[in-house]
């Protein structure tokens, strides 16, 4: 349309979906939009696939905003997607990355929840599915994965914000991602993006024991955060979910790590400790810019350490 998109603002779901079409139109040889399924309330779930060709290349996954109220996550994902498309062909490292690997981005991992935060309850975190026998709706989609499902750090109470749901992968939003990851079969990295409290985490959440690749994941995470901090001095903590935040079972990166995706990480983006999920819009681009440096470091490490 010729209208410029404001990345330094929060947008409703429809605007984000429409912007995806614009990005695809601007970079038709690099970016495609794929529907991976529908949400509980029948909204489409789209991934942006960045690919320069090849068949079933090794791939990197990232999703933003599985907890719908964490708005800076989705906003950061948009900026990252735009950055990746814009820098392909000019940034040598990113170009070599996209010449060898595909990148999948799910910018609205919980579309029903996101729409609900705009229309009804700004603090909504979960999905919007109905729970039989309860007046409370929704499942915490980051307690619903088949990794220590139903264990410590998840609630069996449908009214709780960390309700794990009736069974692993019961949430269609989770199942859609699980199906794509399994049918693809060649993901080498999985990065989940949350917001609040400035952390870069690796598995596990359901157990506090170190995973086999803990030393490598820790070292990659620390180097990534060093680059992040270099931009504005924002301080991040690095460690396993269980050790630096709290024990939480049924999380996405635990599932991906346990099925063999070694480079599984989760970000908790900036909040400044004053605004929670209401991070002022003027901090979106600084947040996206600083974390892009960490994300790029992780992606480069994945590219340079095939397994």
């Amino acid at each position: 349309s010729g209208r410029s998109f404001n990345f330094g603002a929060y947008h409703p779901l429809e605007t984000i979906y429409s912007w995806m079409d614009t990005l695809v139109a601007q970079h038709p040889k690099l970016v495609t939009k794929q529907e991976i399924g529908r949400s509980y309330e029948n909204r489409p779930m789209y991934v942006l696939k960045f690919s320069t060709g090849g068949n079933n290349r090794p791939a990197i996954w990232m999703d933003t905003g599985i907890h719908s109220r964490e708005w800076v996550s989705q906003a950061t994902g948009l900026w990252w997607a735009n950055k990746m498309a814009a820098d392909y062909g000019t940034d040598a490292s990113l170009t070599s990355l996209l010449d060898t690997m595909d990148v999948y981005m799910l910018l609205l991992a919980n579309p029903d929840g996101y729409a609900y935060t705009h229309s009804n309850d700004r603090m909504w975190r979960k999905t919007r599915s109905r729970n039989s026998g309860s007046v409370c709706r929704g499942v915490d989609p980051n307690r619903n994965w088949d990794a220590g499902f139903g264990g410590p750090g998840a609630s069996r109470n449908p009214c709780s914000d960390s309700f794990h749901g009736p069974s692993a992968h019961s949430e269609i939003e989770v199942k859609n991602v699980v199906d794509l990851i399994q049918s693809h079969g060649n993901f080498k990295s999985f990065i989940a993006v949350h917001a609040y409290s400035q952390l870069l985490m690796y598995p596990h959440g359901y157990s506090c024991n170190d995973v086999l690749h803990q030393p490598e994941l820790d070292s990659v995470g620390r180097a990534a955060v060093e680059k992040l901090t270099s931009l504005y001095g924002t301080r991040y903590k690095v460690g396993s979910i269980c050790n630096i935040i709290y024990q939480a079972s049924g999380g996405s990166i635990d599932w991906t790590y346990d099925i063999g995706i070694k480079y599984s990480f989760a970000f908790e983006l900036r909040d400044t400790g004053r605004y929670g999920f209401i991070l002022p819009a003027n901090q979106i681009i600084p947040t996206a810019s600083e974390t892009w440096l960490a994300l790029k470091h992780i992606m480069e490490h994945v590219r340079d350490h095939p397994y």
Partner: protein
Amino acid sequence: ERLFNGDQVIRVNVQSEEQLQLLQALETQQEWELDFWLRPVSTDLPVDIRLPRSAVSSVTELLAAHGVPFSVIVDDLQELLDQEKAEMLKNQMKER
């Protein structure tokens, strides 16, 4: 649309296991509808809780009675939400 008038967000810096247990008990009770943004798990980590307006005085009095230190990090959540909404409207108009 749900309103959060008078809701506060407090940060609790837990100093002992007893204080931690008190917060964990608060987390499991449903009556006050507390929204834990950072859950009580360790004396090393802060705990952030959104207190619905109706629960502000009960919770803060309880914490004070047990000597649990806390500070208010969001005084009125709805004010922040109103600012956010105004900013979104302004941005939408600017875009078009």
